């Protein structure tokens, strides 16, 4: 027994010692450019790999390694682990908002303002675009693309055949649900198993009721969710549930399966983001579809034209000794040819050259226009704010939508989970 105990003690001391020195020394330039992101899909991956090849051809002494992590993992602890481990990425994907602010705070986001003024990144983007990417006057991120996180897509034929028009007001929305249900058609398809699909939609709707400022404040960490205003907002979600606006299976199927209901014309509408366009063109080429922003809410304090969206981009790691190479790579990524390649891969980069040349789907152009001209932008809970808060909020929204909890109960539960 003595031997065993001694062994364990020794090992523990050794391991704790290793655990203690977790921080790494300043990395040297090993001429490997490391890039990390959540998986953007096959088409985009091909473009990235191609740009990597282009870069390596032009800079023979540097190797480019791209790490495509599983989405959900990247967003939660994947990126954290990478940044704090050995071989931290030199360039990594991020969303603007609270997450970017956190990276700046932790010292992982380089100040690249100069790169845009006089460096390789100059002239690729309009100055206006840099807004969300700049904090305290310092630009911290290289723009990539902007998503509209949620709109209401609709099947033109299904609506027309059933004598309804895309809802422009809240009352019309409920009436449309009733009319479609009577014909045995799912009004709005949602695959909410992972909670964010309907979560983003309903969070946006809620912001229209409580107002963008209140939304940002409470989601940002100040104040309780259990307030009369929020209860009123959640009450509208209950109305959606009462009118059976969403498919019964919403909480059991994921977002892809939800989209399928829309593609198969079993549902007349689908609440999801701007990425639906390319996917629908692939999966359901005969589908004639368009979108409307969600209708204004009665007595809503929020801006009736607000758009829920998020700007994304790539951060250059402040701790990286290869920032110059990183900037050059990002400039190459946004060269006119590569931008066109991305457009062909169904993503619209924010670079100026995107508007010149190839055919972008009219709906995508409209969405970008709507986002650019939006009177107010609402950030999605999970990318604009703290993840734990977002989880709690999403669960609360899902519970009310699924009829599992009353608005008051759901809000109280959110507060309890967050310790407010």
């Amino acid at each position, binding site marked *: *027994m*003595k*031997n*065993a105990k001694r062994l364990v003690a020794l090992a523990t001391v050794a*391991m704790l010692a*290793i*655990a203690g020195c*977790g921080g790494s020394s300043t990395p040297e330039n090993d001429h490997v450019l490391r890039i990390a992101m959540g998986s953007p899909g096959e088409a985009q991956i091909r473009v990235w790999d191609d740009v990597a090849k282009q870069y390596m051809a032009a800079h023979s002494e540097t190797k480019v390694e791209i790490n*495509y*992590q*599983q989405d959900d*993992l990247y967003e939660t602890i*994947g990126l954290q*682990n990478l940044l704090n*481990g*050995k071989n931290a990425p030199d360039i990594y994907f991020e969303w603007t908002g609270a997450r970017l602010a956190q990276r700046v705070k932790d010292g992982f986001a380089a100040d690249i303002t100069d790169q845009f003024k006089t460096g390789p990144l100059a002239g690729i983007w309009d100055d206006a675009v840099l807004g969300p990417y700049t904090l305290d006057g310092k630009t911290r991120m290289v723009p990539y693309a902007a998503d509209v996180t949620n709109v209401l897509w609709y099947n033109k034929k299904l609506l027309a055949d059933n004598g309804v028009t895309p809802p422009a007001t809240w009352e019309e929305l409920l009436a449309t649900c009733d009319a479609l249900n009577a014909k045995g058609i799912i009004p709005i398809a949602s695959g909410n198993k992972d909670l964010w699909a309907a979560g983003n939609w309903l969070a946006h709707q809620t912001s229209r009721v409580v107002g963008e400022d209140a939304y940002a404040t409470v989601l940002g960490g100040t104040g309780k969710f259990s307030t009369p205003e929020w209860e009123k907002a959640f009450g509208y979600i209950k109305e959606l549930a009462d009118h059976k606006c969403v498919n019964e299976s919403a909480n059991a199927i*994921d977002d*892809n*399966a939800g*989209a*399928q209901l829309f593609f*198969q014309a079993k549902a007349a509408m689908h609440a999801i983001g701007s990425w639906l366009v390319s996917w629908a063109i692939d*999966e359901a080429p005969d589908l004639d579809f368009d979108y409307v922003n969600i209708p204004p809410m009665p007595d809503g304090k929020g801006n009736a034209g607000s758009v829920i969206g998020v700007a994304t981009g790539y951060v250059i790691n402040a701790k990286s000794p290869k920032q110059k190479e990183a900037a050059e790579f990002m400039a190459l990524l946004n060269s006119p040819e590569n931008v066109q390649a991305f457009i062909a891969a169904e993503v619209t980069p924010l670079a100026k050259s995107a508007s010149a040349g190839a055919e972008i789907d009219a709906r995508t152009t409209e969405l970008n226009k709507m986002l650019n001209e939006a009177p107010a932008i609402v950030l999605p809970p999970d990318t604009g704010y703290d993840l734990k808060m977002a989880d709690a909020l999403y669960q609360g929204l899902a519970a009310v939508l699924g009829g599992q909890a009353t608005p008051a109960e759901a809000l109280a539960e959110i507060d309890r989970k967050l310790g407010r």
Partner: protein
Amino acid sequence: MLVSAALGLLALFFFFPMIWMVLSSFKTNASIFSTPFAPPTSVDFARWSEAWEVGNIGQYAINSTITTLVSVTAILLLGAGAAFAFSRYRFRGRGAFMALFALGLLLPLQSYFIAQSTLFTQLDITDTRLALIIPYTAMGLPLAVYLLKVYLDALPEELFDAARIDGAGDWRVFRELALPLLRPGLATVAIFSALSAWNEFLLALLYIQDDALKTIPTGLLAFSTRYVTDYSLLFAALSIVTIPMIVIYVVFNRQIVEGITAGSVK
């Protein structure tokens, strides 16, 4: 008669999902969705080869095979050594060390996987095959040591004394006497631990992010989340993974049953 009918019905219930899976892999997505029970119009293996390529199944199978083979070999060697020590020798600490391994039989994975993962992260072996081989070996050892010890205990002392008189040292006794006699036990342990390692999921999920190193369980999961609505492709992938296992079972049926029988009886 009734019994045979009951058996037949039960067998059908158990096997039907797999039959449905294979048949659906030959249909189109639309027809799977609208007419789930309709048989396929043609037996076309196109989706199967597509699933194999697109799904990288070959790579996952290689990874699973390497990980399992190395782990099982390690379990057999290390386990036999430890079982030999416990069974044929008396030494200080024997009881305590045996208790440690016995603890391993009951200890749930949850009690150590968290710290194991932080340990591996700090040792920087995550995203390597070692990150799976080490835990699989460690997790297979308690059962291996226990089973092999039981086999060794059953051997008469005279056998070993005779070898001693012949002048054999410890290592030779182990290698030339104990190991060969352990063959049935080793086979049983090999079957159990191979099955465990092949199907292990939680650690593979946590430790391996690199798609090139994924094993079949995690690879299949990644595949199924990427092609969530390409049902026939998914069914094809599932079929590709399932059918070899059925074939192996049918071929090695007797050994597998004997192994489990022997293991459970002891």
